[in-house]
């Protein structure tokens, strides 16, 4: 740390030191960020793909539908880079018939937002499955909302989902039993699921009726128009 005793260091030298340090820092961060971005995105895509496979029960393939101008389209709308476009995933079985939609849901939990993936069958108005993607619920107490004992109750549940307190008799059919001691987290999950479906249901219904209309008009098979943007779910 050179500092000539008695003499004052000229300001430009101080500015130069900090400026050079800042430039080197910025360069290093940008380089590493750019180099690792594909890997981070691949990881995120992998998590999403796995969740879609789980809530739609391993579909043969799935398409991405983008929300643009209040309607769902099969092609990604042109947006500025970095804009997050809301989307749902439509799953198909081996014969090519649509099995349902996978939709991401977010809702405030006990500590932070809980992120879920919900599988929904609009024909039956029922859920196909539910998986928690991210939660910071109290470990040991409320993190059991992530566990299969709680989440598998959502499979086949009618929408809107009704939460029930645990009783000796057991729940009414179609109800989801909340976890004792984790009532807030259980409610948060149910609420997030219901809110998301309430919002997406009309959009999905409109998209489905649009598809039917095109099919009736003798157009090409509608699902050809929908580009497969996601490869089939990975099998573990």
């Amino acid at each position, binding site marked *: *740390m*050179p*500092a*000539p*005793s008695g003499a004052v*260091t000229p300001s430009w*030298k*101080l500015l130069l*030191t*900090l400026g050079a*340090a*800042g430039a*080197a*820092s910025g360069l*290093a*961060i940008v380089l*590493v*960020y750019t180099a*690792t971005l594909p*890997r*981070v995105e691949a*990881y995120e895509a992998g998590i999403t793909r796995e969740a879609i496979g789980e809530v739609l029960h391993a579909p043969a393939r799935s398409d991405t539908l983008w929300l643009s101008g209040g309607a769902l389209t099969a092609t990604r709308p042109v947006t500025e880079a970095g804009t997050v476009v809301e989307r749902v995933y439509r799953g198909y079985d081996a014969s090519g018939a649509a099995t349902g939609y996978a939709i991401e849901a977010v809702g405030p939990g006990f500590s932070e937002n809980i992120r879920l993936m919900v599988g929904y069958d609009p024909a039956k108005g029922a859920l196909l499955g539910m998986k928690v993607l*991210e939660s*910071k619920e*109290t*470990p*040991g*107490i409320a993190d059991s909302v992530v566990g299969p004992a709680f989440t598998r109750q959502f499979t086949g549940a009618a929408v809107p989902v009704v939460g029930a307190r645990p009783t000796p008799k057991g729940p009414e059919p179609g109800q989801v039993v909340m976890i004792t001691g984790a009532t807030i987290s259980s409610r948060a999950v149910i609420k997030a699921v219901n809110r998301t479906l309430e919002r997406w249901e009309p959009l999905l219904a409109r998209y489905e009726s649009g598809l039917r209309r095109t099919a009736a008009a003798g157009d090409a098979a509608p699902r050809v128009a929908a580009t497969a943007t996601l490869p089939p779910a990975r099998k573990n």
Partner: protein
Amino acid sequence: MRGVPPPEIPGRRRSTATEDLLRGIWKENPTLVMLLGMCPTMAITGSVRNSIAMGVTTAFVLILSSITVSTVRNVVRHEVRVATYILIIATYVQLADILTAALIPDAHKALGAFIPLIVGNCLLLGRQEAFSSRNTVWRSALDGIGMSAGFTLGLTTVGTIREILGGGTWLGIRVLPAAFEPWVIMKLPPGGFFGFGLVLLALAWYYDLKKRRAAVQAAIATVTAPARERAPALERAR
């Protein structure tokens, strides 16, 4: 601090390379002795896995910061040294954040907001001011390695207590019988204080015992010293 090597403190010799390396592990352990970096010690020691992940991440930042600060120590003007050091530390923290997200995403998710908070860990700026800014690159790297190892050791010790009592497992392996009802509080934030308190209690007890033993030895030596010439038998008995 003025571009000249620090003055020799009378009665204290310069440390050796081995001492620079080992200092942080036991004698001046950042967590257990100097009580630095308490934020991660409380926040992420709920499991051994997270403790190790935080220890390794901090090691990455500390070792590289020490090397960098030591490299530029003769270029950085005294007046802007703290700003420069913290910029160097912050850069490595940012890189650690990006790299953990890319390489160990699960650990990155678990550590969450605590990786950016490494910038505020006073262990880092403390070592730059106290050591790397006045020692060679090689010695600074050794100091960084030793301090990081000591920090990881401290975190893992607290993490071990918390994970075993709070979940009956160690590094995910069940060590207590399933019949053991986990003390959930040990996994929650208060468990950080309980766990760390227990570790400090054990250390204080150990040092107290050592001190008393030394005092007793000294007393025996004083009492027996004059007798030594008179009674060699007593000397043998001792």
